[in-house]
């Protein structure tokens, strides 16, 4: 009697381009899709995670192929074609699904490895699933386990402490220069995807304001709205340098847009408060000589790459440690699942033996229901005790670690020994 299969279907930033992910994400919240999943009778328990980098469905079912087909149809079929599904969607079953969930929770599968946000999103998604009543015994255990795995990885490794991407490196450097990023202002010059990512990071680390300057003002206004910032025209740039502290430049301009001589007078007006320029444009937007000014720090894309590389070897060590933790937890969960497998057998065995003992008792003592309260209780206790004693060797055989004989094998032995399957069939036939 095998347990239900655990299946995970999804897309993430590694398999799927942003344009497709955008279409698949459930922007309107979890209630609607969870209700839709509830209509599928193949699914026992299910839960759904949708973030800007991934959409994943986790469910337990009997028939993997059929359930998978139905879920894919429902979740993804409306927005993308089936060849696209085949190309982008990954499927993990049982141990693999468990491992994948742990990796996601521990932020090892994130775009920015080690970022902490994903755990919050996971918890949020789980909260919706429990509210909708669609997670059950197995998923509850699995998700709670994934939270504790994430916590373990965070406390036992330093994976979260390292700069692992360009924008993360920028934040790290900003912290080394400014100490605290709160009350600092960021100016985005040009509104590319990289700049956006960096800005998002900085906002997450508490910068006070985001100002966006762009050639086309409309784009600037749109982006500024995302961060509650304001938009300015490109011509106002030198003026703005007086007020902002971090400048991220990513325009497509062919030449330099800011020279050393533009920045020098600004520093006097700023009373030498530090300025941090990040130039992620190729070709470069900012004069490299700007870095020579006191209290001004300029990093271009290559410099940032070096920072990332520097942290990488350190991070890889931490990642190995984190993988080890996850492998360990996966094994533990696997053992729990396997024990789940033996539970129905134990229940059945106990019921059968108890049934027989009670039948024998009733043969000599008369029917239990007709006895007075006290006597019946005493006899019931005796029946339970005899049952316990009688099935103890079998339980011990099932539960103890046995390296020579696998658990399924042992379950089979017990079932055959006690005629559990035939008895059950007989009873069903009787019923």
């Amino acid at each position, binding site marked *: 009697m095998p347990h239900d299969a655990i299946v995970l279907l999804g897309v993430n930033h590694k398999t799927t381009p942003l344009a497709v992910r955008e279409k698949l994400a459930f922007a309107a919240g979890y209630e609607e899709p969870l209700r839709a999943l509830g209509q599928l009778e193949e699914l026992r328990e299910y839960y759904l995670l949708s973030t800007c980098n991934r959409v994943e469905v986790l469910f337990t079912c009997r028939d993997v192929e059929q359930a998978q087909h139905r879920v894919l149809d429902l979740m993804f079929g409306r927005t993308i074609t089936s060849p696209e599904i085949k190309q982008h969607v990954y499927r993990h079953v049982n141990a693999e699904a468990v491992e994948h969930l742990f990796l996601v929770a521990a932020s090892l599968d994130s775009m920015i490895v080690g970022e902490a946000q994903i755990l919050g999103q996971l918890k949020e998604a789980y909260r919706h699933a429990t509210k909708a009543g669609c997670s059950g015994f197995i998923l509850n255990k699995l998700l709670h386990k994934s939270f504790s795995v994430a916590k373990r990885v965070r406390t036992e490794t330093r994976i979260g402490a390292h700069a692992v991407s360009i924008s993360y490196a920028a934040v790290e450097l900003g912290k080394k*220069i*400014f100490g605290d990023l709160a009350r600092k202002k960021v100016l985005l010059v040009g509104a590319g995807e990289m700049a956006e990512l960096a800005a998002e990071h900085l906002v997450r680390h508490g910068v006070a304001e985001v100002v966006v300057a762009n050639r086309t003002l409309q784009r600037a206004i749109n982006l500024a709205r995302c961060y509650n910032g304001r938009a300015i025209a490109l011509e106002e740039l030198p003026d703005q340098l007086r007020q902002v502290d971090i400048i991220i430049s990513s325009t497509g301009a062919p030449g330099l847009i800011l020279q050393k001589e533009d920045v020098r007078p600004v520093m006097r007006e700023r009373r030498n408060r*530090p300025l941090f320029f990040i130039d992620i444009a190729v070709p470069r937007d900012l004069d490299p000589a700007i870095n020579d000014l006191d209290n001004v720090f300029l990093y271009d894309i290559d410099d940032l790459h070096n920072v990332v590389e520097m942290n990488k070897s350190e991070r890889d060590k931490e990642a190995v440690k984190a993988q080890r933790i996850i492998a360990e937890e996966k094994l533990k969960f696997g053992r729990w699942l396997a024990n789940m497998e033996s539970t129905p057998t134990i229940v059945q065995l106990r019921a059968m033996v108890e049934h027989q003992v009670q039948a024998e008792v009733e043969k000599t003592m008369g029917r239990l229901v007709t006895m007075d309260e006290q006597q019946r209780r005493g006899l019931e206790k005796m029946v339970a005790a005899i049952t316990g004693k009688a099935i103890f060797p079998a339980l011990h055989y099932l539960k103890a670690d046995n390296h020579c004989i696998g658990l399924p094998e042992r379950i089979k032995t017990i079932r055959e020994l006690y005629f559990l399957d035939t008895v059950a069939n007989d009873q069903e036939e009787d019923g």
Partner: protein
Amino acid sequence: MSFLLFQSCVVVYLLATAAYLVFFLTQKNTLRQTGRVIFLAAFFLHTASLIARAIETGQTPLTSHHEAISFFGWSLGCCYLSFCWRYAVKNLGAFVSPLVFALMLVAAFSSRSMVSLSPALQSWWFPVHALITLLADGFLALSCIGSIMYLLQEREIKKKRFGLFYSRLPSLEILDKLNHHCLSMGFPLFTLGLIAGSLWAKQVWGAYWQWDPKETWSLITWFLYAATVHQRFTVGWRGRRVAILSIVAFLSVLFTLWGVSFLLEGVHSYAS
């Protein structure tokens, strides 16, 4: 008694320095706690030794070279602990404790014989002058340490080559703040110390200012710090330039303290 306390506090300072330096290299958090506890213990021993010395000699124990340097070390420790208590400056201890230990070594190797002031010089202006000046020196030494850390950190960030210091030193902002606070404490104290000294001179010699080498050098030091403070607080210099000025000015403090005493003769030279 005071000697025993002094000896033991030198040893404990050595332990604290070792703990801080090992922590600096390995970054194991338990060591930092250990370092701090040991340093605190050394500081208390040191305080006790100063008090014991004061009781033994029956005067403010600042008359001999040994006593003055020992008190200098104490005031540096005092400033450091007061900063530890108010601000978190990562790894400051690894820089401060060796300096304190070095000062204690210098004190340990100078003559411990008691020097009493001639009756003509005895006045309550003496302890005021000496205490305030040496306390100011403590703050100024801390500003120098902060400036050195700033320059090390700034160099790595500017050159984009991250070595030993980048991850271990605090942010530039914090180091600059450290310099700011130390200057704004140290400079007024230093000024007060100068004034107290000249009032003392007026009382015992009849003249506020005698232009002996120590006084001249103190004035030079004062002007250096005045320039630093002016640039910092009115012109708005910060970062590298102020750090360099602070270091130069502190070198002048050291010269005033030692160079003048041993190279040039004057009323301040500790009696030999």
